[in-house]
């Protein structure tokens, strides 16, 4: 980081650590606390290790706004959140304690539905209608894309239902993995086809 004209002079400061992880951890925590208190922490996030890989969870003050799989590239997801929601983003796990707890219970087979405040702002229009309907598909059940289209009031919009599922900002919590092809095969998934099969198998077994 030192771009000084005289490297000899820069060496005078060798006693001042360039990296001080304990101090940074302390200061980061203090920053999160103060940002929360002053209402300027627009997006808090954390990661959570699960059987379908590491998840990124992000929350606004309204509620959970984004769940992303590792294959979606967490850094890219955070950059999009900076654009779409706010760049005031900090890693602040406390705001996601409840979401993390419920997801852990879900993966342990002890939870069949999520009870969390959700921030729907990343989904609009027909897609959002589709996603709202998905919350009614119960644990261990599936519907075909065509059935979901019919339930959403647009039986011909099968492809649009596929898009709504593919762009679901809140996978797992809004169970787009329960929407499968009419022939019974699983179809695509933001977390990858293996993750979808794994979730469906897990719910069937429970």
């Amino acid at each position, binding site marked *: *980081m*030192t*771009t*000084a*004209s*005289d490297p*000899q*002079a*820069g*060496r*005078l*400061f*060798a*006693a*001042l*650590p*360039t*990296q*001080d992880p*304990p*101090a*940074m951890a*302390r*200061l*980061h925590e*203090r*920053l999160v606390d*103060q*940002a929360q208190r*002053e209402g*300027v*922490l627009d*997006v808090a*996030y954390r990661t959570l290790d699960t059987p379908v890989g590491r998840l990124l969870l992000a929350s606004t003050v309204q509620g959970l706004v984004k769940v992303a799989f590792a294959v979606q590239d967490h850094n890219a997801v*955070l*950059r999009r*959140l*900076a*654009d779409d929601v*706010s*760049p*005031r*983003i*900090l*890693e602040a796990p406390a705001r996601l304690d409840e979401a993390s707890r419920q997801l852990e219970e879900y993966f342990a087979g002890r939870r069949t539905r999520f009870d969390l405040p959700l921030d729907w702002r990343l989904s609009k229009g027909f897609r959002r209608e589709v996603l709202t309907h998905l919350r009614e598909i119960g644990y261990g059940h599936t519907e075909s894309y065509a059935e979901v289209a019919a339930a959403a009031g647009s039986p011909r919009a099968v492809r649009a239902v596929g898009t709504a599922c593919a762009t679901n900002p809140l996978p797992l919590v809004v169970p787009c993995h329960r929407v499968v092809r009419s022939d019974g095969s699983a179809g695509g998934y933001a977390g990858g086809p293996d993750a979808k099969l794994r979730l469906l198998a897990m719910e069937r077994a429970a």
Partner: protein
Amino acid sequence: MRRPFEQIVAEYGPMVLRVCRAVLGPQDAEDAWSETFVSALKAYPDLPPDANVEAWLVTIAHRKSVDVTRAAARRPTPVETLPERPGVTGRPEDWDGDLWRALKALPARQRQAVAYHYLAGLPYKEIAALCGGSTDAARRAAADGIKTLRGTYPRLTDQSGVTR
């Protein structure tokens, strides 16, 4: 397209802490750092995307350091009355008290010029804009500061293992 603020903290946080420590010493540096980053977080959405983030943060840190220095001057127990050698807390992050004693002895202007140039990499022109005075005056302040430090803080390169 703006980066998430978390990345700004990770990338520039350590540099700003070094600058605050060099300008304010171990006692007040963390207060100044906190004030700087809360203030930066608030203003961040309005920062032009092509802005020089490093210079922006040092500018805020400079203002906060001035505030912290003023607040410290109003404290009932001034820093000067503390024992010459700070108590050993055993924390690994405690940095060398000798360096801070040497820095503290410099005029504030020189200490700022040295820190902003050698630790933050700010050009003298920007340091002048920040601290007042001309670019040449900023350059001289940094040079004088370094010259004094070489005399008052003599351990410098000998122990770094680079020159021997």
